[in-house]
């Protein structure tokens, strides 16, 4: 019985992730009119993912989304059962929590992909940038509403500098109304996917190893914190699941790190706490090779040492959830763009930045 389940699971995974080379032409919808298909994708499709694809006649992609939903639900159930059965034991919580998070991420990605592909007018969804520029700079402002914080406006500046597969991404956020600064340096190595240079990747799918170091100086709060986190971060272009999903993608990240918190109080000693990095996201591309182009994604971030922290949910589920954010980056010219972001955790944050790159995409 166990072997049959393993074989069935492997077949299910392969059938979902196998590139959709032989899909029928997604540009010709068959079946229900698009508004009806969209309504089906949104409402009954919230339970049975892929119904929108079925409704437009793309049954193969519908099958794959449904299978992926099943895998996501199974992962969530397995992780949840593990957490309950072990009482969230300190020894096993990480893998079970990862299963829950990735399972939920898969669940929502399959739903949102179907809704996006069915609801958005044809031609709305774009394509990934298949090479990346040497340098991208961003500068802007973030506004924060945090009942426990003494600052509310931060000036943000940072850049991504790439050389082939390597990227370094420093960013500084400094409060304009209080003594508070956040300094983040990230470095990444890309195993596959779009990189800087002439070589063009197949699509936006990527896999990175990331090292992120975050240093926070909360002068008013008399605390200093430094986190170092090592993660694997990947994106999967959902066109590989079905051509009718072209323009959508799913992301996930898993990692571990350590946070050191220092205090100003005499005789206080610093604390060292593990950091569990788990992020899942769903997004869409805008435009193609020429401006305007960009992407928008909604992300769940499980970390608690971020600017917004985790959600304060009413009732018994207090402290369980991380934060949810929506980010959108659009280059309106080949060199100049704008980024907007919203995030909710223990605080609400909204941000707006100007994007600049010194060269157009090759």
């Amino acid at each position, binding site marked *: 019985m166990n072997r049959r389940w393993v074989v069935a699971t492997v077949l299910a995974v392969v059938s979902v992730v196998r590139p959709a080379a032989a899909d029928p032409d997604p540009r010709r919808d068959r079946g229900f009119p698009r508004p009806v298909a969209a309504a089906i994708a949104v409402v009954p499709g919230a339970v049975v993912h892929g119904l929108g694809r079925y409704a437009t006649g793309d049954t193969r992609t519908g099958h794959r989304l449904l299978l992926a939903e099943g895998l996501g639900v199974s992962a969530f159930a397995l992780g949840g059962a593990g957490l*309950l*059965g*072990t*009482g969230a*034991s*300190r020894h*096993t*919580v*990480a893998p079970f*929590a990862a299963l829950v998070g990735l399972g939920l991420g898969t669940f929502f990605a399959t739903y*949102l992909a179907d809704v*996006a592909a069915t609801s958005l*007018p044809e031609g*709305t969804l774009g394509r990934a940038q298949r090479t990346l520029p040497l340098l991208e700079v961003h500068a802007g402002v973030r506004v924060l*509403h*945090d009942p*426990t914080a003494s600052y509310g406006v931060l000036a943000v500046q940072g850049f991504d500098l790439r050389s082939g597969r390597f990227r370094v991404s420093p960013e500084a956020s400094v409060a304009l109304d209080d003594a508070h600064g956040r300094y983040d340096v990230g470095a990444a190595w890309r195993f596959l996917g779009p990189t800087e240079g002439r070589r063009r990747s197949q699509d936006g799918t990527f896999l990175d190893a990331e090292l992120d170091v975050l240093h*926070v100086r*909360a002068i008013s*709060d008399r*605390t200093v*914190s430094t986190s170092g986190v090592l993660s694997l971060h990947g994106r999967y272009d959902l066109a590989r699941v079905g051509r009718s999903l072209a323009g959508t993608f799913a992301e996930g990240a898993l990692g571990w790190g350590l*946070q050191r*918190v220092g*205090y100003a*109080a005499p*005789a*206080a*000693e610093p*604390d060292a*706490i*593990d*950091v*569990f990095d788990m992020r899942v996201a*769903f997004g*869409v591309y*805008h435009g193609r090779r020429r401006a305007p182009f960009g992407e*928008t994604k*909604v992300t769940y971030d499980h970390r*608690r040492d971020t600017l*917004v*922290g*985790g*959600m*304060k*949910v*009413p*009732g*018994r589920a*207090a*402290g369980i*959830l991380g934060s949810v*954010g*929506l980010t*959108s980056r659009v280059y309106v010219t080949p060199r100049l763009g704008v980024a907007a972001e*919203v995030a*909710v*955790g*223990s*605080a609400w944050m909204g941000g707006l930045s100007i994007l600049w790159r010194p060269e157009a995409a090759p």
Partner: protein
Amino acid sequence: MIAWRKGIGAVAVVATTSMACTGVTRERTEEEAAIGSTSAPGIAIRVADGLAALRDGTLDRIHLRAGAPAIDVHVELANAPETFHFEIDNVLPDARCTAIAGDGTSLFVKAEARGRSLDKTCDVSIPRELGPAVTLDLHVASDDDGSAEPFTFGLLADVQEAVGEVDAIYARMGEEADLRFVLFSGDLTRGGSREELLEFERHEKRLDVPLYATLGNHELGSDRVHFHDLYGRGNYSFVYRSTRFTLLDSASATIDPAIYDRLDAWLGAGRHGVHVVAMHVPPFDPSGFRNGAFASRSEAAKLLERLAEGRVDLTLYGHVHSYYAFANAGIPAYISGGGGAIPERLDGIGRHYMKFHVDPIRGVRDATVVRVD
């Protein structure tokens, strides 16, 4: 076209974030401020610092649950009866009641136990000469309340659905000859309903020492916070034998911003003596992967800096159903969630409680885990 894109993104975010309220604690913190005070035509009652829950009352009787070893009750009567009856639950077994009128006259008090020694009736005789409008102040405390003698208290948390089996823990506590009272750091019940809290209290009556509690996240699972009605405030502070105890409501994985000012005052008052702080959800979980802790690590760090600056001697927590001994910001810390709720596995410990021996002059001298299973 743009509207569709915005719409999909907005629906996804709003649907999720409608759950997230950065002000989840505001309503119950505002509600809590009224605990311990009430008025009706002919009578006004105020318990100092809100250290008791007013259960019910009439023009000649009130029923309270004490939230501290010593309480002061101020009563204003427009048409005073011959005798005013105070029914006070959860007092120290050797607590005494004394009363004075508004003009300083000492009043005769007849005190007797109602069932167990922790539930007392203090009948205050009011002379007619004082007139119809009378103010009286009742003080309930044990004779050792102001001393600086060492003492022992217990710690328990996280009973929840295991309330039917908690008697074994209370029986074990009953074997302790020197326990003065028990601190309960949250999750008395599974869902926080009035019925569950009353059942918890029925079992609690088997204890022969008082129990002072704050609420946990499981007390937030009902239509309203019934804990406030029956047990009182979640944020409060009291002094016993020169040792300050502060209990905070961190049930929502945060402290309400309005509490920080009161916390600063309590920290200032407790700075030069022994100060014990207890709450349900800890600022940091020793298992960072699990993060059974504050929702925001920034806020957690800010709180711990305050406690360290205030020279808090001991921090006590529940929420995690196991036992942890660690330090936060250099302050000794214990998580003791051994009341019987779904336990953490693979941790080598089952149901348990802790006891602490305090010397008000020299500090917390000893911390012991007592295994029940």
